[in-house]
């Protein structure tokens, strides 16, 4: 601990943290930019579905603008979109899907394969608004963890969803999915799904931090697996980083910000990163930035020169 470089590093880190605390109001607002953008994306998508269902929004001509919901939809009568996990579950019940559903599933799958799977979680999924609120409130209220649950539980839940679909003959996750419930009940009218969302909110707030999205949701698990090769990634600049840890404190999936791995690879590599952008907006040294995977190596090399 008496290592002089170590002390210097700690001083740097503290200086970084001070920078965060001493930000101007404008800078504070600016650091919320991705949150605002994500809310706009989530609400816009909901609104397009809602407007088409309730106000008969049509474009072009008399084709419905965006009909359906996140499970399956059609945009402007041209672009079918289907949740690939729902399609997979239906397939496992022993039913062949129609060509339209398969094309729709392929469209969505390829989109997130290229962009990064959990972009869905942070930018599209409506439950994210609920769990983000719970997470934010939890930090505010400084609620201590009750117990530890490994982050990889979601993959077991995903496996269970697939196996149970085959056994029970119905799409196991679709029948209990709070994601589906929330979208359906906002677009097509209220049932008791909001109770499930309330349960998730309280679970995340009082029991397990980032409990639903970060530990249990099999859809998040599915997109984590798909999104490993996503092209939009957060680039890590190891020369400017002071190890202050501000990013890890604000990240809903802090395991993806493992410093050792970041320094090794120069980017947030894990598919569990949802590209929510919190860390990039907050980092006081600007060491974390969105970038295209193909350019990250080049940019990192440039930064080092």
């Amino acid at each position, binding site marked *: 601990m008496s290592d002089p470089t170590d002390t210097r590093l700690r001083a740097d880190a503290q200086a970084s943290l001070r920078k965060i605390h001493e930000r101007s109001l404008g800078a504070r607002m600016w650091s919320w930019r991705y949150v605002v953008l994500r809310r706009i994306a989530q609400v816009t998508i909901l609104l397009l579905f809602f407007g*088409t*269902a309730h106000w008969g929004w049509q474009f072009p001509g008399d084709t*419905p603008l965006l*009909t*359906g*919901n996140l*499970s*399956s*939809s*059609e945009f402007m009568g041209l672009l*079918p979109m*289907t*949740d690939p996990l*729902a*399609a997979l579950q*239906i397939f496992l*019940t*022993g*039913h062949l*899907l*129609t060509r*339209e*559903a398969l094309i*729709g599933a392929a469209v969505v799958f390829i989109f997130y394969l290229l962009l990064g799977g959990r972009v869905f979680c942070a930018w599209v999924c409506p439950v994210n608004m609920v769990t983000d609120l719970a997470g934010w409130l939890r930090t505010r209220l400084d609620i201590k963890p009750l117990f530890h649950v490994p982050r990889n539980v979601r993959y*077991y*839940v995903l496996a*269970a969803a697939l*196996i*149970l679909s085959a*056994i*029970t*003959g*119905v*799409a*196991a996750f*679709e*029948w*209990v999915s709070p994601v*589906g*419930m929330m979208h*359906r*009940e906002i*677009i*097509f*009218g*209220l*049932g*008791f*799904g909001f*109770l*499930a969302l309330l349960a998730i909110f309280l679970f995340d707030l009082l029991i397990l931090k980032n409990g639903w999205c970060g530990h249990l949701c099999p859809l998040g698990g599915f997109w984590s697996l798909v999104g490993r090769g996503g092209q939009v990634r957060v680039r890590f600049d190891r020369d400017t980083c002071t190890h202050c840890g501000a990013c890890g404190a604000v990240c809903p999936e802090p395991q993806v910000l493992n410093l050792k791995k970041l320094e090794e690879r120069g980017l947030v590599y894990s598919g569990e990163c949802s590209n929510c952008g919190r860390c990039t907006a907050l980092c006081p040294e600007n060491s974390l930035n969105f970038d295209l995977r193909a350019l990250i190596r080049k940019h990192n090399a440039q930064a080092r020169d």
Partner: protein
Amino acid sequence: MTGKTTTRREFLLKAAQGTAMAATGGLLWVYLLRQEARAHPYALRPPGALVEKDFNATCIKCGQCVNACPYDTLKLAGAGGSLPIGMPYFIPRDIPCYLCPDIPCMRACPTGALSPDLKDINDSRMGLAVIDLENCLSWKGLRCEICHRECPLKGKAISLELHPRAQSKHAMFYPIVNSDFCTGCGICEKACPTAEAAIRILPHGMVQGRIGEHYRLGWTFDTEISQDFKPAETAPPAVQETTVPDKAPGVDYLNEGEP
């Protein structure tokens, strides 16, 4: 990873704990699914819906059929209600199915849960109209027959049977449902003037019996009489184009002179 060796006891314990977690979670999940799937046997599905088991499996709960329905007939079941979650249904007494010839709901379905094999809307079988004879105005002897008149397949799906009465000039006009033609659209149920509809749509499984193959109706013309016990060819459905005959007693009694 840390070079720490796992003892057999630890390994077995971990395996047992994992299995227990998976089993409890899985059982709870399956219980939920089964509760949902068998929630309510009365659900009426849109035209072209596959049989219940296949419909439950293939419906992706997207609501595109609901959006496509021009009459707002279809609704999606909410969570925690009495119907299986998220799937389309309709309540004929509120809004029946008006049998669009182009079947927009079926065409909107992305998964084939509403089967594209349905080419003619009149071939759809959403349910079967059932008459409560005790509370049907026509069966009580009143001239109602609204269900017959409103039926899109009048004369086929609902026909009228005339029964003259000995004590009265009025004939009885019995509406009769023919399951070979009834689509289950529910326009009759919507139109029925009684306080609670005396004609209702129910899923076939709730109301239809099956006589079994060993009964042989020797007195019908289509049944071949033979000694062996082969099942008889099923008779083709008897199409009764019941038009009201002019001369039936009591039909036009107001215009007949007093005897």
